[in-house]
Protein backbone atom coordinates (compact mmCIF):
# COMPACT_ATOMS: atom_id res chain seq x y z
CA UNK A 1 0.00 0.00 0.00
CA UNK A 2 1.70 3.17 -1.18
CA UNK A 3 0.14 6.49 -0.26
CA UNK A 4 -0.14 9.31 -2.73
CA UNK A 5 -1.78 12.71 -2.27
CA UNK A 6 -5.13 11.39 -3.44
CA UNK A 7 -5.22 8.54 -0.88
CA UNK A 8 -7.54 8.95 2.04
CA UNK A 9 -5.85 7.62 5.18
CA UNK A 10 -7.90 6.24 8.04
CA UNK A 11 -7.18 4.28 11.16
CA UNK A 12 -7.44 0.53 10.60
CA UNK A 13 -9.92 -1.71 12.42
CA UNK A 14 -9.03 -1.89 16.09
CA UNK A 15 -6.73 1.13 15.97
CA UNK A 16 -7.39 4.00 18.35
CA UNK A 17 -5.68 7.38 18.64
CA UNK A 18 -6.41 8.83 22.04
CA UNK A 19 -5.17 11.08 24.77
CA UNK A 20 -3.98 9.28 27.89
CA UNK A 21 -4.92 11.28 30.93
CA UNK A 22 -2.57 9.49 33.28
CA UNK A 23 0.58 10.26 31.25
CA UNK A 24 -0.84 13.39 29.62
CA UNK A 25 0.28 11.97 26.28
CA UNK A 26 -1.25 10.96 22.95
CA UNK A 27 -1.04 7.28 22.09
CA UNK A 28 -1.97 5.05 19.18
CA UNK A 29 -3.43 1.79 20.46
CA UNK A 30 -3.61 -1.15 18.08
CA UNK A 31 -3.81 -4.94 18.37
CA UNK A 32 -0.81 -5.87 20.55
CA UNK A 33 0.83 -2.59 19.58
CA UNK A 34 1.28 0.77 21.18
CA UNK A 35 2.80 3.73 19.39
CA UNK A 36 3.89 6.96 20.99
CA UNK A 37 3.67 9.70 18.36
CA UNK A 38 5.95 12.73 18.69
CA UNK A 39 4.64 16.31 18.63
CA UNK A 40 4.61 16.57 14.84
CA UNK A 41 3.05 13.14 14.36
CA UNK A 42 0.29 14.07 16.81
CA UNK A 43 -0.70 17.09 14.71
CA UNK A 44 -0.75 14.92 11.59
CA UNK A 45 -2.80 12.16 13.21
CA UNK A 46 -5.35 14.69 14.46
CA UNK A 47 -6.12 15.40 10.78
CA UNK A 48 -6.78 11.74 9.97
CA UNK A 49 -10.57 11.50 9.84
CA UNK A 50 -11.18 8.97 7.07
CA UNK A 51 -12.49 11.71 4.73
CA UNK A 52 -9.58 14.07 4.12
CA UNK A 53 -7.01 13.01 1.52
CA UNK A 54 -3.29 13.09 2.19
CA UNK A 55 -3.10 16.18 -0.03
CA UNK A 56 -5.84 17.83 2.00
CA UNK A 57 -4.07 17.03 5.26
CA UNK A 58 -0.88 18.61 3.94
CA UNK A 59 -2.82 21.72 2.90
CA UNK A 60 -4.39 22.03 6.35
CA UNK A 61 -1.07 21.69 8.13
CA UNK A 62 0.71 24.07 5.74
CA UNK A 63 -1.92 26.73 6.42
CA UNK A 64 -1.96 26.15 10.16
CA UNK A 65 1.80 26.12 10.70
CA UNK A 66 2.65 28.55 7.93
CA UNK A 67 5.25 26.07 6.63
CA UNK A 68 6.48 25.45 3.07
CA UNK A 69 4.18 22.84 1.55
CA UNK A 70 6.91 20.81 -0.15
CA UNK A 71 8.79 20.21 3.09
CA UNK A 72 5.63 19.26 4.96
CA UNK A 73 4.49 16.97 2.16
CA UNK A 74 7.57 14.81 2.47
CA UNK A 75 7.37 14.56 6.29
CA UNK A 76 3.65 13.90 6.45
CA UNK A 77 3.79 11.34 3.66
CA UNK A 78 6.69 9.49 5.26
CA UNK A 79 5.06 9.41 8.69
CA UNK A 80 1.74 8.08 7.44
CA UNK A 81 3.44 5.61 5.10
CA UNK A 82 5.37 4.24 8.07
CA UNK A 83 2.15 3.68 10.03
CA UNK A 84 0.54 2.18 6.92
CA UNK A 85 3.39 -0.32 6.59
CA UNK A 86 2.76 -1.27 10.22
CA UNK A 87 -0.93 -1.74 9.48
CA UNK A 88 -2.14 1.04 11.78
CA UNK A 89 -3.19 3.32 8.90
CA UNK A 90 -5.25 2.02 5.97
CA UNK A 91 -6.14 3.68 2.70
Amino acid at each position, binding site marked *: *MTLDEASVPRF*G*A*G*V*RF*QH*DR*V*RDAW*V*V*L*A*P*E*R*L*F*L*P*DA*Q*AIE*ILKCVDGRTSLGGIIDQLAARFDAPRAVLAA*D*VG*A*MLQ*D*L*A*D*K*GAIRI
Partner: protein
Amino acid sequence: MSNADAPLGLIAELTHRCPLQCPYCSNPLELARSAAELPTEEWLRVFEEAAALGVLQLHLTGGEPTARRDIVALVRRASELRLYTNLITSGVLIDQAMLDALAGAGLEHIQLSFQDLDPANADRIGGYAGGHAKKLELAERVTRAGLALTANFVVHRQNLGRVPEMIRLAEALGAGRVEIAHVQYYGWGLVNRPALLPTRAQLDEATAAVDAARESFKGRLAIDYVVPDYYATRPKACMGGWGRRMLNIAPTGKVMPCHAAEILPGFTFPSVREASLSDIWYHSDAFTRFRGTDWMPEPCQSCDRREIDWGGCRCQAFALTGDASRTDPACALAPDHQVMLEAVRESEAAPADLVYRRIGAGTGLAKPPGSGAASQSAMPQEADGVGP
Protein backbone atom coordinates in the same frame (compact mmCIF):
# COMPACT_ATOMS: atom_id res chain seq x y z
CA MET B 1 12.34 0.55 43.80
CA SER B 2 9.35 2.80 43.43
CA ASN B 3 10.52 5.01 40.57
CA ALA B 4 9.13 2.56 38.03
CA ASP B 5 7.01 3.72 35.10
CA ALA B 6 3.30 3.03 35.12
CA PRO B 7 2.28 -0.29 33.55
CA LEU B 8 1.02 -0.32 29.96
CA GLY B 9 -0.91 -3.56 29.88
CA LEU B 10 -3.01 -5.79 32.11
CA ILE B 11 -3.49 -9.45 31.34
CA ALA B 12 -6.61 -10.61 33.12
CA GLU B 13 -6.87 -14.38 33.30
CA LEU B 14 -10.56 -14.49 34.03
CA THR B 15 -10.80 -18.23 34.50
CA HIS B 16 -8.86 -21.43 34.05
CA ARG B 17 -11.94 -23.14 32.65
CA CYS B 18 -11.62 -24.05 28.99
CA PRO B 19 -13.46 -26.44 26.72
CA LEU B 20 -10.17 -27.30 25.03
CA GLN B 21 -7.21 -29.24 26.39
CA CYS B 22 -4.13 -28.29 24.44
CA PRO B 23 -0.97 -30.12 25.48
CA TYR B 24 1.06 -26.89 25.45
CA CYS B 25 -1.35 -24.83 27.51
CA SER B 26 0.46 -22.06 29.37
CA ASN B 27 -1.74 -22.30 32.45
CA PRO B 28 -0.18 -23.65 35.63
CA LEU B 29 -0.23 -27.38 36.25
CA GLU B 30 -2.45 -26.69 39.26
CA LEU B 31 -5.53 -25.09 37.73
CA ALA B 32 -7.81 -22.84 39.77
CA ARG B 33 -11.34 -24.13 40.24
CA SER B 34 -14.26 -21.92 39.33
CA ALA B 35 -15.40 -21.31 42.92
CA ALA B 36 -12.05 -19.63 43.61
CA GLU B 37 -12.40 -17.17 40.72
CA LEU B 38 -12.79 -13.45 41.40
CA PRO B 39 -16.43 -12.41 41.17
CA THR B 40 -17.67 -9.76 38.73
CA GLU B 41 -17.57 -6.80 41.13
CA GLU B 42 -13.97 -7.47 41.99
CA TRP B 43 -12.87 -7.59 38.37
CA LEU B 44 -14.72 -4.33 37.73
CA ARG B 45 -12.90 -2.68 40.61
CA VAL B 46 -9.59 -4.06 39.36
CA PHE B 47 -10.21 -2.59 35.90
CA GLU B 48 -10.92 0.80 37.47
CA GLU B 49 -7.71 0.65 39.47
CA ALA B 50 -5.79 -0.42 36.39
CA ALA B 51 -7.07 2.49 34.30
CA ALA B 52 -6.23 4.94 37.10
CA LEU B 53 -2.75 3.44 37.34
CA GLY B 54 -2.10 4.09 33.64
CA VAL B 55 -2.88 0.75 32.03
CA LEU B 56 -3.86 1.33 28.39
CA GLN B 57 -4.54 -2.13 27.09
CA LEU B 58 -6.50 -4.91 28.69
CA HIS B 59 -6.09 -8.49 27.54
CA LEU B 60 -8.91 -10.75 28.62
CA THR B 61 -7.75 -14.31 28.63
CA GLY B 62 -7.99 -17.55 30.57
CA GLY B 63 -8.57 -20.40 30.16
CA GLU B 64 -11.38 -19.46 27.91
CA PRO B 65 -12.54 -15.97 28.97
CA THR B 66 -15.97 -16.43 27.40
CA ALA B 67 -16.61 -19.30 29.79
CA ARG B 68 -17.40 -16.48 32.24
CA ARG B 69 -21.07 -15.52 32.13
CA ASP B 70 -20.20 -11.90 32.89
CA ILE B 71 -17.83 -11.46 29.95
CA VAL B 72 -19.97 -8.83 28.21
CA ALA B 73 -20.34 -6.76 31.38
CA LEU B 74 -16.59 -6.90 31.94
CA VAL B 75 -15.87 -5.71 28.40
CA ARG B 76 -18.42 -2.92 28.71
CA ARG B 77 -16.87 -1.53 31.88
CA ALA B 78 -13.34 -1.76 30.45
CA SER B 79 -14.41 0.11 27.37
CA GLU B 80 -16.13 2.82 29.46
CA LEU B 81 -12.81 3.23 31.24
CA ARG B 82 -11.23 3.73 27.79
CA LEU B 83 -9.12 0.62 28.14
CA TYR B 84 -8.27 -0.90 24.77
CA THR B 85 -9.90 -4.28 25.11
CA ASN B 86 -8.55 -7.43 23.55
CA LEU B 87 -10.20 -10.83 23.89
CA ILE B 88 -7.90 -13.84 23.62
CA THR B 89 -10.10 -16.79 22.88
CA SER B 90 -10.38 -20.25 21.43
CA GLY B 91 -13.68 -19.00 19.99
CA VAL B 92 -15.66 -22.20 20.32
CA LEU B 93 -18.15 -20.72 22.81
CA ILE B 94 -18.88 -17.49 20.90
CA ASP B 95 -22.13 -17.55 18.93
CA GLN B 96 -23.50 -14.66 16.86
CA ALA B 97 -25.47 -13.22 19.78
CA MET B 98 -22.45 -13.15 22.04
CA LEU B 99 -20.29 -11.64 19.31
CA ASP B 100 -22.83 -8.87 18.72
CA ALA B 101 -23.03 -8.20 22.44
CA LEU B 102 -19.24 -8.04 22.77
CA ALA B 103 -18.91 -5.69 19.79
CA GLY B 104 -21.70 -3.53 21.19
CA ALA B 105 -19.95 -3.42 24.56
CA GLY B 106 -16.88 -1.86 22.93
CA LEU B 107 -14.52 -4.77 22.30
CA GLU B 108 -11.74 -3.70 19.89
CA HIS B 109 -9.87 -6.84 19.02
CA ILE B 110 -10.26 -10.58 19.05
CA GLN B 111 -7.33 -12.90 19.06
CA LEU B 112 -8.42 -16.29 17.89
CA SER B 113 -6.21 -19.30 18.43
CA PHE B 114 -5.95 -22.10 15.92
CA GLN B 115 -4.47 -25.46 16.87
CA ASP B 116 -3.63 -26.47 13.31
CA LEU B 117 -4.77 -26.07 9.69
CA ASP B 118 -6.03 -29.55 9.14
CA PRO B 119 -9.42 -29.74 10.89
CA ALA B 120 -8.96 -33.30 12.12
CA ASN B 121 -5.51 -32.59 13.44
CA ALA B 122 -6.59 -29.30 15.03
CA ASP B 123 -9.48 -30.98 16.80
CA ARG B 124 -7.21 -33.77 18.00
CA ILE B 125 -4.69 -31.28 19.47
CA GLY B 126 -7.37 -29.14 21.11
CA GLY B 127 -9.32 -32.23 22.13
CA TYR B 128 -12.58 -30.63 20.94
CA ALA B 129 -14.53 -32.13 18.04
CA GLY B 130 -15.74 -29.59 15.49
CA GLY B 131 -13.76 -26.79 17.14
CA HIS B 132 -11.78 -25.87 14.06
CA ALA B 133 -14.83 -25.39 11.84
CA LYS B 134 -16.38 -23.14 14.48
CA LYS B 135 -13.28 -20.98 14.57
CA LEU B 136 -13.25 -20.46 10.80
CA GLU B 137 -16.85 -19.40 10.88
CA LEU B 138 -16.26 -17.07 13.82
CA ALA B 139 -13.27 -15.41 12.14
CA GLU B 140 -15.45 -14.38 9.26
CA ARG B 141 -18.14 -13.02 11.56
CA VAL B 142 -15.57 -11.06 13.58
CA THR B 143 -14.29 -9.11 10.60
CA ARG B 144 -17.82 -8.61 9.32
CA ALA B 145 -18.64 -7.04 12.69
CA GLY B 146 -15.80 -4.56 12.10
CA LEU B 147 -13.60 -5.87 14.89
CA ALA B 148 -9.87 -6.30 14.46
CA LEU B 149 -8.83 -9.93 14.20
CA THR B 150 -5.58 -11.66 15.02
CA ALA B 151 -5.16 -15.29 14.07
CA ASN B 152 -2.89 -17.05 16.53
CA PHE B 153 -1.12 -20.27 15.65
CA VAL B 154 0.90 -22.07 18.25
CA VAL B 155 3.63 -23.93 16.43
CA HIS B 156 5.83 -26.86 17.36
CA ARG B 157 7.59 -29.69 15.61
CA GLN B 158 4.37 -31.37 14.54
CA ASN B 159 3.01 -28.41 12.54
CA LEU B 160 5.88 -26.01 11.91
CA GLY B 161 6.18 -26.96 8.24
CA ARG B 162 2.77 -25.43 7.58
CA VAL B 163 3.63 -21.84 8.52
CA PRO B 164 3.15 -20.48 4.97
CA GLU B 165 -0.39 -21.92 4.85
CA MET B 166 -1.14 -20.49 8.28
CA ILE B 167 -0.22 -17.02 7.08
CA ARG B 168 -2.33 -17.45 3.94
CA LEU B 169 -5.29 -18.62 5.99
CA ALA B 170 -4.99 -15.59 8.30
CA GLU B 171 -5.08 -13.26 5.32
CA ALA B 172 -8.01 -15.12 3.74
CA LEU B 173 -9.95 -14.79 7.00
CA GLY B 174 -9.48 -11.02 6.96
CA ALA B 175 -7.11 -10.88 9.93
CA GLY B 176 -4.99 -7.74 10.20
CA ARG B 177 -2.44 -9.56 12.26
CA VAL B 178 -1.17 -13.10 12.59
CA GLU B 179 0.80 -14.44 15.44
CA ILE B 180 3.04 -17.45 14.92
CA ALA B 181 4.10 -18.37 18.42
CA HIS B 182 6.27 -21.26 19.36
CA VAL B 183 5.13 -23.21 22.36
CA GLN B 184 6.61 -21.77 25.52
CA TYR B 185 8.29 -24.41 27.60
CA TYR B 186 6.87 -23.81 31.03
CA GLY B 187 4.11 -25.74 32.72
CA TRP B 188 2.41 -28.10 30.27
CA GLY B 189 4.79 -27.12 27.51
CA LEU B 190 7.79 -28.22 29.55
CA VAL B 191 6.17 -31.54 30.38
CA ASN B 192 5.74 -32.11 26.65
CA ARG B 193 8.95 -30.50 25.45
CA PRO B 194 10.54 -33.58 23.89
CA ALA B 195 7.50 -34.02 21.63
CA LEU B 196 7.18 -30.34 20.75
CA LEU B 197 10.57 -28.71 20.33
CA PRO B 198 11.38 -28.41 16.61
CA THR B 199 14.71 -29.25 15.06
CA ARG B 200 17.10 -26.56 13.84
CA ALA B 201 16.34 -27.36 10.20
CA GLN B 202 12.57 -27.10 10.75
CA LEU B 203 13.04 -23.80 12.51
CA ASP B 204 15.23 -22.25 9.82
CA GLU B 205 12.73 -23.17 7.15
CA ALA B 206 9.86 -21.59 9.10
CA THR B 207 11.85 -18.43 9.80
CA ALA B 208 12.63 -18.00 6.11
CA ALA B 209 8.95 -18.44 5.27
CA VAL B 210 7.98 -15.75 7.78
CA ASP B 211 10.57 -13.31 6.42
CA ALA B 212 9.30 -13.77 2.87
CA ALA B 213 5.67 -13.34 3.92
CA ARG B 214 6.46 -10.17 5.89
CA GLU B 215 7.71 -8.57 2.70
CA SER B 216 4.83 -9.69 0.49
CA PHE B 217 2.05 -8.89 3.01
CA LYS B 218 3.50 -5.56 4.20
CA GLY B 219 0.77 -3.10 5.17
CA ARG B 220 -1.97 -5.75 4.89
CA LEU B 221 -1.02 -8.29 7.48
CA ALA B 222 1.23 -7.72 10.47
CA ILE B 223 3.15 -10.90 11.26
CA ASP B 224 4.47 -11.48 14.75
CA TYR B 225 6.75 -14.41 15.10
CA VAL B 226 8.36 -15.62 18.30
CA VAL B 227 11.26 -18.02 18.01
CA PRO B 228 11.89 -20.57 20.75
CA ASP B 229 14.67 -19.55 23.10
CA TYR B 230 16.30 -22.90 22.66
CA TYR B 231 17.79 -21.79 19.37
CA ALA B 232 18.63 -18.24 20.36
CA THR B 233 21.98 -16.84 21.44
CA ARG B 234 20.41 -14.02 23.45
CA PRO B 235 17.24 -14.26 25.51
CA LYS B 236 14.01 -12.36 24.99
CA ALA B 237 13.03 -9.61 27.38
CA CYS B 238 10.24 -11.60 28.95
CA MET B 239 7.18 -9.34 29.18
CA GLY B 240 9.37 -6.37 28.29
CA GLY B 241 11.29 -6.81 31.54
CA TRP B 242 10.15 -7.94 34.97
CA GLY B 243 7.58 -5.48 36.34
CA ARG B 244 8.24 -2.91 33.64
CA ARG B 245 5.19 -3.01 31.39
CA MET B 246 2.73 -5.70 32.28
CA LEU B 247 0.64 -6.99 35.12
CA ASN B 248 -0.87 -10.45 35.00
CA ILE B 249 -3.77 -11.35 37.26
CA ALA B 250 -4.64 -14.99 37.81
CA PRO B 251 -8.29 -16.11 38.13
CA THR B 252 -8.05 -16.06 41.92
CA GLY B 253 -6.78 -12.46 41.98
CA LYS B 254 -3.10 -13.15 42.45
CA VAL B 255 -1.00 -10.52 40.69
CA MET B 256 2.22 -11.51 38.95
CA PRO B 257 4.64 -9.87 36.53
CA CYS B 258 4.12 -12.80 34.15
CA HIS B 259 1.62 -15.64 33.93
CA ALA B 260 4.34 -18.23 34.44
CA ALA B 261 5.72 -16.61 37.61
CA GLU B 262 3.44 -18.71 39.77
CA ILE B 263 6.00 -21.53 39.54
CA LEU B 264 8.64 -19.46 41.33
CA PRO B 265 9.31 -20.52 44.93
CA GLY B 266 10.07 -17.98 47.63
CA PHE B 267 7.51 -15.52 46.29
CA THR B 268 4.26 -14.46 47.83
CA PHE B 269 2.25 -12.97 45.02
CA PRO B 270 -0.10 -10.36 46.40
CA SER B 271 -3.81 -10.55 45.69
CA VAL B 272 -6.10 -7.78 44.50
CA ARG B 273 -8.25 -8.87 47.43
CA GLU B 274 -5.65 -7.61 49.91
CA ALA B 275 -3.85 -4.70 48.31
CA SER B 276 -4.38 -2.02 45.70
CA LEU B 277 -2.99 -2.56 42.24
CA SER B 278 -0.90 0.58 42.62
CA ASP B 279 0.64 -0.67 45.83
CA ILE B 280 1.35 -4.02 44.25
CA TRP B 281 2.95 -2.48 41.16
CA TYR B 282 5.14 0.05 42.91
CA HIS B 283 5.92 -1.54 46.24
CA SER B 284 5.40 -5.30 46.44
CA ASP B 285 8.41 -7.57 46.73
CA ALA B 286 6.97 -9.65 43.87
CA PHE B 287 7.19 -6.74 41.41
CA THR B 288 10.35 -5.03 42.67
CA ARG B 289 12.61 -8.02 43.27
CA PHE B 290 13.73 -8.45 39.67
CA ARG B 291 12.82 -5.00 38.39
CA GLY B 292 15.57 -3.00 36.74
CA THR B 293 19.18 -4.15 36.88
CA ASP B 294 20.24 -4.05 40.56
CA TRP B 295 19.38 -7.70 41.18
CA MET B 296 21.40 -9.01 38.26
CA PRO B 297 24.26 -11.46 38.62
CA GLU B 298 27.22 -11.52 36.28
CA PRO B 299 27.52 -11.76 33.32
CA CYS B 300 24.38 -9.57 33.06
CA GLN B 301 25.51 -6.93 35.57
CA SER B 302 28.32 -5.72 33.32
CA CYS B 303 26.68 -6.56 29.98
CA ASP B 304 25.67 -3.80 27.59
CA ARG B 305 22.44 -5.61 26.77
CA ARG B 306 21.16 -5.53 30.34
CA GLU B 307 18.56 -2.87 29.58
CA ILE B 308 17.58 -4.52 26.31
CA ASP B 309 16.71 -8.04 27.43
CA TRP B 310 16.75 -7.39 31.19
CA GLY B 311 18.58 -10.66 31.77
CA GLY B 312 15.86 -12.70 30.04
CA CYS B 313 13.10 -14.67 31.66
CA ARG B 314 13.10 -15.41 35.39
CA CYS B 315 10.70 -18.31 35.04
CA GLN B 316 12.84 -19.96 32.42
CA ALA B 317 15.93 -19.45 34.59
CA PHE B 318 14.11 -21.16 37.44
CA ALA B 319 12.58 -23.94 35.34
CA LEU B 320 15.94 -24.89 33.90
CA THR B 321 18.41 -24.13 36.70
CA GLY B 322 16.32 -24.19 39.88
CA ASP B 323 17.30 -20.57 40.65
CA ALA B 324 15.19 -17.68 39.38
CA SER B 325 17.94 -15.11 39.89
CA ARG B 326 20.41 -16.68 37.45
CA THR B 327 21.02 -15.43 33.94
CA ASP B 328 18.46 -16.92 31.56
CA PRO B 329 20.07 -20.06 30.10
CA ALA B 330 18.84 -18.95 26.67
CA CYS B 331 21.76 -16.51 26.68
CA ALA B 332 24.90 -17.99 25.15
CA LEU B 333 26.89 -16.09 27.81
CA ALA B 334 24.96 -17.73 30.65
CA PRO B 335 26.84 -20.24 32.80
CA ASP B 336 23.87 -22.61 32.35
CA HIS B 337 23.52 -22.32 28.57
CA GLN B 338 24.44 -26.02 28.29
CA VAL B 339 20.93 -27.10 29.40
CA MET B 340 19.46 -25.46 26.30
CA LEU B 341 21.85 -27.30 24.04
CA GLU B 342 21.01 -30.60 25.72
CA ALA B 343 17.29 -30.06 25.21
CA VAL B 344 17.92 -29.37 21.55
CA ARG B 345 19.86 -32.61 21.19
CA GLU B 346 17.03 -34.45 22.91
CA SER B 347 14.56 -32.94 20.41
CA GLU B 348 16.46 -34.52 17.53
CA ALA B 349 15.47 -37.92 18.96
CA ALA B 350 12.06 -39.47 18.28
CA PRO B 351 9.12 -37.43 19.62
CA ALA B 352 7.52 -38.59 22.83
CA ASP B 353 3.77 -38.80 23.41
CA LEU B 354 1.82 -35.74 24.42
CA VAL B 355 0.36 -35.30 27.89
CA TYR B 356 -3.00 -33.53 27.88
CA ARG B 357 -3.89 -30.93 30.49
CA ARG B 358 -6.74 -31.20 32.94
CA ILE B 359 -7.73 -29.74 36.27
CA GLY B 360 -6.67 -31.90 39.16
CA ALA B 361 -4.18 -33.94 37.15
CA GLY B 362 -1.21 -32.68 39.13
CA THR B 363 1.73 -32.99 36.82
CA GLY B 364 -0.68 -34.34 34.28
CA LEU B 365 -1.39 -37.94 33.54
CA ALA B 366 -2.94 -38.38 30.16
CA LYS B 367 -6.58 -38.17 31.17
CA PRO B 368 -9.32 -36.03 29.66
CA PRO B 369 -9.82 -32.39 30.64
CA GLY B 370 -12.14 -30.49 32.86
CA SER B 371 -11.21 -26.92 32.66
CA GLY B 372 -9.18 -24.65 30.75
CA ALA B 373 -6.66 -22.06 30.27
CA ALA B 374 -4.86 -19.38 28.44
CA SER B 375 -3.57 -19.45 24.96
CA GLN B 376 0.04 -18.81 24.17
CA SER B 377 0.32 -15.22 23.26
CA ALA B 378 3.31 -13.93 21.38
CA MET B 379 4.14 -10.95 23.46
CA PRO B 380 3.14 -7.87 25.25
CA GLN B 381 3.09 -4.77 23.17
CA GLU B 382 6.20 -2.93 22.17
CA ALA B 383 6.13 0.77 22.78
CA ASP B 384 7.27 2.17 19.47
CA GLY B 385 8.07 5.79 18.88
CA VAL B 386 6.53 7.19 15.73
CA GLY B 387 7.52 10.41 14.12
CA PRO B 388 8.52 11.80 10.81
